[in-house]
């Protein structure tokens, strides 16, 4: 029974890895990427304006602020996904939202950090 379960778990794990690779290459992921980039630009403008008002460097990388803005961007994207019932499509694929969103969080941090170096 345990060996059977172990085999089943291994198969599921293999499937999950395969699904994740397919997901990252998919057009749906690219469409989320585009939407997230627009949200990142909106978030960056709002963040820069706020920083300018309180006399801080507008494009500096402040980890706490970046995480708050990133959480907001992710929340907006999740709302879009749920509104379109695409969470059910992702669910049928066996994809958890954290797996779907993790690359976008990394992208936010990388872009914000790169922009702070350029500024």
């Amino acid at each position, binding site marked *: 029974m345990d060996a059977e379960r172990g085999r089943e778990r291994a198969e*599921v794990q293999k*499937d*999950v890895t*395969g*699904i994740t690779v*397919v*997901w990252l290459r*998919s*057009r*749906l992921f690219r*469409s989320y990427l585009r939407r997230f980039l627009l949200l990142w630009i909106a978030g960056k403008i709002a963040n820069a304006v706020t920083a300018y008002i309180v006399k801080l460097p507008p494009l500096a990388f402040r980890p706490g602020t970046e995480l708050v803005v990133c959480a907001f961007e992710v929340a907006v994207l999740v709302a879009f996904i749920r509104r*379109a*019932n*695409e969470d*059910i*499509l*992702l*669910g*049928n*694929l*066996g*994809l*958890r939202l954290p797996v779907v969103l993790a690359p976008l969080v990394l992208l936010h941090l990388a872009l914000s950090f790169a922009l702070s170096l350029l500024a």
Partner: protein
Amino acid sequence: MIAGDSITVSLGGRAILQSAYVDAVPGKITALVGRSGAGKTTLFEILVGRRRPDGGQVRWNGERVPRPSLVLLARRGLFYHPDRSWLALSLTTADHFALLGRSPDSDVLGITAWLNRRVGALSGGELRLTEMALGVALAPRVALLDEPFRGLDPHHRERVAAALRLMAERGTAVLYADHDVESVRRTADRLFSMEQGATRLVEGFRERPLSEWYHAWPM
């Protein structure tokens, strides 16, 4: 395969489900029939973990699933079709199959005619057939379909029924909800009726007159 046992839910002090039981059997089409508002959608949402019950449990292969979720059950072989469209409107039908890593293995549903059209540009019937074709391509162990015939003309209804039969022939445990009793009599192998939040398995529903087991409901 999948079962909801003694499921109880109340909303705002009103009992929606009262110790409801439903299950699906491999290779068979099981229908859950009840009028609108009987609690069919609520019961399906509990089975896939989109809603928490006040009492009762969900079982998979006889084992209790402590915290069911669509992702967890999909990884075990569940396909879920809710009572609304769930495809990405900006993608084509072919994109959806690519996302699944599958190809449409037969054209029983006629979807190849719109394989490269955006899902958002499909008619309601074509959209439903696309959803069913994806379900067939996934080769699920269990298919949970909430009102798959809703809003379809007879031609599209027949094609969706063919998809359900195809899944069952391939060993899938199909469980679907409907409120059209005559359609259910033609399509289903097993039938649970649902009334006032409670369910019962109806034996011999094809042979027995409708009035014997459906008399309390408006037609």
